[in-house]
């Protein structure tokens, strides 16, 4: 009985880590290149809506995913234009992007679908062989493709950041853009690419909610998940493995909270729902004394031949 409960919680923790992983790894790429994108939540909402709507129209979640990729990329492009080319204050422009995504996704949903509808999203795809392993098979290898993708992203991001020339350029653009520029790195282009990839991943994060985990769209369905993802980047110390640890922490708390509610345990549900936000603050506060390596040029616009 206790064993089955733990397996259940672990399985749903793996599932629920999915949107956090896509969004936070995407955000980490942008921040490592020097751009703080606070609009993740808005991009997620647009990704969630476009993925949902295209899946509803065509019946193919793969096409829905492509739509979310496109929408996320465009939103990333908008953020890159405003923060890299126009050198706007990044914290405020991110809030603008959030409001834009929140309003537009609500508007489009209201004018096209209107009522809550379920779609046939990505089906569970147990991995042959591996899913037969007792306990671990159910926890790790019996999910839908977007869940596997999120976990595959962690080593992939680590490899790109640490073992490829592009990763080196990206980190250089975020650490010391002037030096990078003098070595022939096109800082502007690197930042554009990083923020657009971040947007695409945020779009996928949203779609993972609407066409893989919950299979519905509702207005403001992310409920601040995108902002938590930004906090996870700090928590993870800008490293993919650190982000993974943070995402698992949050998804485990979420899974336990859902389980408690299903069990009808007598704590007011509002306090349970409050937990992720309280934990985010505690986690950020706990890092005050920890030595972390903030990208030196984070939040600083770059101008060739500038000061």
């Amino acid at each position, binding site marked *: 009985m206790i064993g089955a409960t733990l397996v259940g919680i672990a399985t749903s923790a793996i599932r629920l880590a999915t949107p956090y992983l896509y969004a936070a790894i995407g955000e980490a790429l942008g921040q490592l290149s020097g751009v703080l994108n606070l609009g993740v939540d808005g991009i997620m909402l647009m990704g969630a809506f476009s993925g949902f709507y295209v899946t509803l129209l065509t019946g193919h979640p793969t096409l829905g995913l492509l739509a979310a990729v496109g929408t996320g990329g465009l939103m990333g492009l908008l953020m890159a234009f405003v923060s890299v080319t126009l050198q*706007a204050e990044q*914290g405020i422009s991110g809030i603008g992007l959030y409001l834009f995504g929140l*309003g537009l996704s609500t508007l489009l949903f209201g*004018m096209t679908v209107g009522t809550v509808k379920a779609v046939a999203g990505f089906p569970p795809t147990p991995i042959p062989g591996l899913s037969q392993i007792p306990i671990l098979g159910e926890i790790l290898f019996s999910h839908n493709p977007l869940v596997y993708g999120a976990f595959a992203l962690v080593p992939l991001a680590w490899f790109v950041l640490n073992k490829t020339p592009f990763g080196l350029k990206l980190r250089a653009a975020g650490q010391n853009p002037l030096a990078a520029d003098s070595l022939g790195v096109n800082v502007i282009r690197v930042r554009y690419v990083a923020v657009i990839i971040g947007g695409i991943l945020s779009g996928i994060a949203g779609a993972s909610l609407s066409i893989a985990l919950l299979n519905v769209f509702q207005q403001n369905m992310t409920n601040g998940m995108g902002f938590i993802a930004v906090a996870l980047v700090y928590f993870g110390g800008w490293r993919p493995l650190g982000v993974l640890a943070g995402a698992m922490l949050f998804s485990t708390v979420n899974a336990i909270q859902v389980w408690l509610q299903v069990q009808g345990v007598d704590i007011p549900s509002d306090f349970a729902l409050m937990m992720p936000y309280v934990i985010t603050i505690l986690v950020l506060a706990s890092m005050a004394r920890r030595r972390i390596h903030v990208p030196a040029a984070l939040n600083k616009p770059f101008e060739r031949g500038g000061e």
Partner: protein
Amino acid sequence: MPDGLRPRRPASLLAQLVPLFAVLLAFAVGALMLLALGVNPWGALKALLQGAFGDLNAIADTIVKAIPLLFVGLGICISFRGGVLNIGGEGQLVVGALAATAVALAGTGLPGWMLVTVSLLAGALAGAAWGGIAGFLKAYLNVNEILSTIMLNYIAVYGMNYLLRGPMMDPIQVKLGFFIPQTARLPRAADLPRLVPTRLHLGALLAVAVAVLVYIFLWRTTVGFRIRTVGMSRRAALAAGIEVKRYMVLGLLLAGLLAGLGGAVEVLGVHHRMFTDGTAFGFTGGAGFNGIVAALFGRLHPLGTIPSSFLFGALLTGANKMQRVMQVPAALIVALNGLIVLFVVGSEVIRRRRLRRLEKLSAEGKG
């Protein structure tokens, strides 16, 4: 910090008008979006203007909608100029409203002026506490205030939902078996007086008076000067012997105080009870975010934020009419506000470059 938002010397009228172009551009994008959705943008604009200014009631409603924007926006003026970004208006409005409600309900029987005063004070203090938490976390534990204020928004909302579905729920309703998540109606003595026979209430005058006070505070007092100095350059402020941390806390605390006062005014002036639909938007109407937009558009100047809040209040009031007449969800305005923020902060660099070129030209002309 908000480098691009520092006040610059007014050099050219054209450069000053850039934010206005940003708003027009956002409207143009909005019109294109409506066209793509098969809605006549002219019809939508007409409905919007009629809803906002069509008759005396419409104008009064516009002003009523502008009041919380102005309170939040004034707090934004202080905090952004102090170099701390307060995105916690939603939560601060909610806790301010809750505190004012609790005090007004507890103070049944007190004379009106006293009940109103203590309720408003309670709201302001609760908001100050909510903003102060973020300020403390920022100054002493290095927690990014944008993230902490957003998290505090959600915490406030779930706290509100708990209180309104539990301890603060209208006892008469509970007895009758209705479980609408709202409090009892506040004693009538706590109602803010109406100004003219519309929904316009005393809060409008209070908000304008507070705007003048914030202006005097920021530009005519030592504390205000120090807050602005910290916002311009933390290093310079440190060198000048200013205790930077203390003023960062103060900036967020005052922003919370003003938003909390706004929440209290909203309860005493408009709703006369606290209620929830489960989200922050249900009570605030998004004023915590829209107040930021209004303040940015008012160039982070307390007096500039007055007309700017009126403008955005008009947009919100008009949007309700647009929703009824044209079936365009009022969320359109949220999207447009987002674009306005992007365009206004994005256009700063263009304005700055233009000013720099003008200064260079005039210097060369003299030399």
